[in-house]
């Protein structure tokens, strides 16, 4: 679109470096406290080490989750596709205030949980995935990210939604999460219902429920040995869904 300048100008054209345009497209980050590394003992006795994913791990994470996009049952394909887009959105800086926690057992990528902050108060839960069977890894990852939101980042609300029946059963019904009026409120995952947990509900019921589901609690005092074993993220050989 063009309109003649209503004033004499000394330059007919302005040229911008793309680096000058980038701040228009990349959201300035909130000052998020990092997730402190933690371990949790799983139901089957294995130790799950949970840390933030490193940006340089994004390609290997993306390539593994791409394989889940091919699973045509139980909504794994749509969950996989959305997680791939979230991982790429994170490393291409097209996701506002994202966080991605990875759960590792002896370096093998066992679980994933991510989300982003709409504001300092509202945390949007995106996805939780378990890549190894047994041990309630999904529950441990969900607990870790909700703990991060409420206990470390100081969020007051947690907004979730569900693509799959299993996800809805485990978390929506399992935590007796209320939902906001729909369609007035829509989750950014496809405009679905927003199920929410408030901080007072977390404190009163949900935290203990999830902790009991996992069977143990987070331990933030991580031995060097565990940290070293999990320095390098290695995806599982197989896709077990």
């Amino acid at each position, binding site marked *: *679109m063009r309109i003649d300048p209503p004033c004499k100008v000394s330059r007919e054209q302005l040229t911008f470096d*793309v680096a000058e*345009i*980038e701040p*228009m*497209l990349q*959201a300035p980050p909130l000052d998020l406290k990092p997730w402190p590394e933690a371990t949790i003992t799983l139901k089957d006795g294995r130790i799950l080490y949970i840390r933030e994913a490193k940006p340089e791990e994004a390609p290997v994470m993306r390539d593994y989750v*791409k394989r889940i*996009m091919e699973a045509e049952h139980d*909504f794994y*394909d*749509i969950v996989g*596709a*959305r997680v*791939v*887009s979230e991982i*790429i*959105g994170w490393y*291409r800086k*097209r*996701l*506002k*205030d994202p966080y991605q926690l990875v759960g590792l057992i002896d370096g093998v990528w066992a679980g994933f949980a991510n989300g*982003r902050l*709409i*504001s300092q108060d509202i945390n949007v839960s995106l996805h939780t995935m378990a890549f190894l069977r047994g041990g309630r890894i999904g529950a441990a990852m969900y607990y870790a990210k909700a703990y991060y939101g409420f206990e470390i980042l100081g969020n007051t609300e947690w907004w979730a939604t*569900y*693509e*799959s*029946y299993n996800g*809805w*059963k485990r978390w*929506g019904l*399992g*935590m*007796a999460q209320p939902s906001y009026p*729909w*369609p007035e409120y*829509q989750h*950014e*995952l*496809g*405009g*679905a*219902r927003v199920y929410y947990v408030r901080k007072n509900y977390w404190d009163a*019921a*949900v935290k203990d*429920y999830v902790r009991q589901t996992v069977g143990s609690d987070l331990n933030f005092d991580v031995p060097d040995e565990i940290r070293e074993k999990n320095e390098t993220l290695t995806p599982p050989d197989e896709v077990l869904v």
Partner: protein
Amino acid sequence: MRLEPPCKVTRDKLTFDVAEIEPLLQAFPLDMEPWPEAMITLKDGRVLYIREAKIEEAPVLLSYVKKMLDVDHDFYDIVGARVYAEILGWYRKRLKDPFTLIGLIDGQLAGLGNGRMFSKDIAVSLHTMTFSRGVRMGWVMYYAKTYYALEILGASEWWSTFESYNGWRMAGVEMAQPQYPWPTMQHELGGSPIYYVSKNYWNKVIKQYLRTMIGSDLIFDVPEEVKQKNRTLIVPSDVTV
């Protein structure tokens, strides 16, 4: 989470068919008028036929768009990943009131423009992709989907955002789109700023501007010959971006 029932019950368990749970996860649709097939003459004289994608075409669209995930320049990877998730979200009914328009030249996929209705008033622009160079295909597909939302569906606002510098230039800057306050309002594509076109601005400025840029207008009276040539969707053999 469990609580003891505060009343005697005749059944200790209730079993639901997943089909009974599905209405909790699948948004019930707005009563949207379909896109009437249309054609438009491109700058180089070729005729672009624009129709809604058929649900049975989703797998072939997915197989083509998947190739974009591997393109690591100009944000094609994040755009490709999101479009892939959107097509799959439409296919798996995890996207509220989506629309997926495809532009075809003699059956060959040349462009895609999609979005979804947040409500009867607000249309959310998702992505526009061009698979044919040098004919302002992006402008054409953006025009068609905005026309659909504002002229046919009767939306009063059109909400866009941009991952790439080229997209921001084409629609954000060249259409002089205003923005809503950020971060108070966030686009569902990653929480970025919302650029919007009101119906009033569309009527007064944008519609004519787009027609001028494209060099022609939509024709809704499509000859049988054009329809037949484009009945079967063919995806390009290569990705040329």
